[in-house]
């Protein structure tokens, strides 16, 4: 089970609402994937337009993770988070502060500032950051509920480009680690989980697949397999061969 703030989830696959060919594809994807938490950009929420309101396409059983997409500073992220809460989106918030519109890489300093403020206000804060063990430690101290390092730039489907750094975060972080952004294939999600990540967030790869529901199911199975691989105590790899009948075995007989 994955515990984030006050809630516990049996699924370790978080999904997103962006980039789908139709909002009507979101509910079947959620059902097929078993994902229990989904991000939604508050900038796309339009409560005044019933059919176009993205929230009406998300079942009540799924936890909303509003994100602060569009924020360039901590101040803007805080403002968006407060509006999301006031709009009835709950207390979970994914901090997304981006100042680089080419690569959409997160700005760690502003993210940390926003986390400090929002955690004090009782939000369950999930910050999206560059993979760095220092920021993971600082976010823990600031009251974050998890740390979300990117695997690769948003939408790139490039996989675990930050693998070595993510591994170090997993090794040292006291917070749950959710690999966010860049995961483009179920095998990459499985690899992140196998490394010891607590969860992964996948949007583009699912949303832009020919069959998003099937893609969601594939990712769910990959995440579950990766988690089991992490827990089962696999033997480590080594460069040389290891004989099943060792040459010095006779000494123990």
């Amino acid at each position, binding site marked *: 089970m994955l515990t984030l703030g006050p809630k516990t989830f049996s699924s370790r696959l978080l999904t997103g609402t*962006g*980039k*789908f*060919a*139709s*909002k009507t594809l979101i509910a079947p994807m959620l059902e097929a994937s078993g994902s229990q938490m989904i991000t939604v950009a*508050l*900038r*796309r*929420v*339009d409560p005044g*337009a019933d059919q*176009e309101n993205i929230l009406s396409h998300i079942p009540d059983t799924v936890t909303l993770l509003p994100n602060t997409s*569009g924020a*360039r500073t901590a101040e*803007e992220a805080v*403002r*968006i988070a407060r*509006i999301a809460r006031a709009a009835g989106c709950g207390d979970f918030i994914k901090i997304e502060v981006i*100042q*680089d*519109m*080419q*690569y*959409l890489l997160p700005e760690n300093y502003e993210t940390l500032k926003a986390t400090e403020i929002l955690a004090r206000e009782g939000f369950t804060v999930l910050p999206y950051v560059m993979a760095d063990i220092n920021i993971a430690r600082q976010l823990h101290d600031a009251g974050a509920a998890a740390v979300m390092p990117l695997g690769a730039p948003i*939408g*790139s*489907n490039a996989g675990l480009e930050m693998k070595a750094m993510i591994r170090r975060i997993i090794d040292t972080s006291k917070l749950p680690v959710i690999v966010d952004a860049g995961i483009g294939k179920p095998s990459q999600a499985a690899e992140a989980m196998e490394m010891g990540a607590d969860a992964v967030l996948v949007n*583009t790869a699912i*949303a*832009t697949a020919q069959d998003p529901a099937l893609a969601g199911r594939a990712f769910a199975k990959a995440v579950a397999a990766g988690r089991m691989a992490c827990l089962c105590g696999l033997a480590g790899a080594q460069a040389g061969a290891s004989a099943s009948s060792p040459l010095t075995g006779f000494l123990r007989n």
Partner: protein
Amino acid sequence: MSFFEIANQYQDFDFAGYFDGVTDRDVGASLAKAGEINRLNEYDLLNLLSPAAAGFLEPMAQKARTLTLQYFGRTIGLYAPMYISDFCSNHCTYCGFNAKTGFPRTKLSLEEIEAEAKAIADLGIRHILVLTGEAPAKTPMDYLEDTVSLLTRYFSSVALEMFPMEEEAYRRLCRAGADSLTVYQEVYEQGLYKSVHPKGPKSDYAFRLLTPERGARAGFRALNIGPLFGIGEPKAEAFMAGIHARYLEREFPDVEVSLSLPRMNPVDGGMAPAHLLDDAGFVQTMLAWRLFMPRLGINISTRESAQFRDRLIHLGATRYSAGSKTDVGGYTVRNPERTNCDTTVQFDITDTRSVDQVTQMIRESGYQPVFKDWEIF
């Protein structure tokens, strides 16, 4: 270095000579590099715009489509224009709002603007583009600030396409709630620019060229630029617009940059296009821009036909205008069905479909229409 200095470096560049020398092999090499941000340099852009690249449209389209899906998903943003004044002191030889064109000029009152805003918002549109001619005495800052403030009550994004202003004026409009700025250079070739802008403030090439930079410094979160195809040589103009967009992207990394491809349409008092950009050239330009800048927004206006717009969705377009009226008060105030007023349009619309019809087309094409994608909170 401002973009004016960069533009100057290309004033004597032999575009025709370069394009003539591009081989299939050059195009293939540039195309093979495409797929990552900043992978293609200026010469790659030239290669992809060249006549030789016309034979590579399909592989360019396949790659452009993949990149667009990756960065934007299957979504198309929607917006509508709103003209609030057609007073203008410029003498642009190609424009229906030219100061010399004789027609009764109109400026909407705030009440009329609100009526227009309600009508457009009722269509579902949440992103509005506000346009004026260049006549600051008729549309002073107070009027523009009041307009923007009023529109923020109806729309989540207010974009401006007005006359070039100083940075401080833009700051005031940003504070009032505007978030995006559109300014077309119309033509990048300096001599030609002078000849088609003989009089009026628009005759200042450099001031217009540097407008997006002033806008970015003033706080606009999005910039939209482009040439008006029909005035200058299309391939050279497309190249200049492309490197202008990349300059802005690099200089202002927190700003979203997009390009438009307006083609000249017939207007009252306007001149015939000197250079025609045909549909194949239009598509090639769009694909070259997409491969050059994978994260670039590409806007398609209702100047283009419905049939053509339907196809462009699959080729890298990201935003469409819909249900557009290009005359002042065209949605309600001067709607001929309600009044007997004559209307004067800035240019003729070709895709006359309603917002609902465009929305339906987007859905049937396998894409999601996005009405709201921004809000100043």
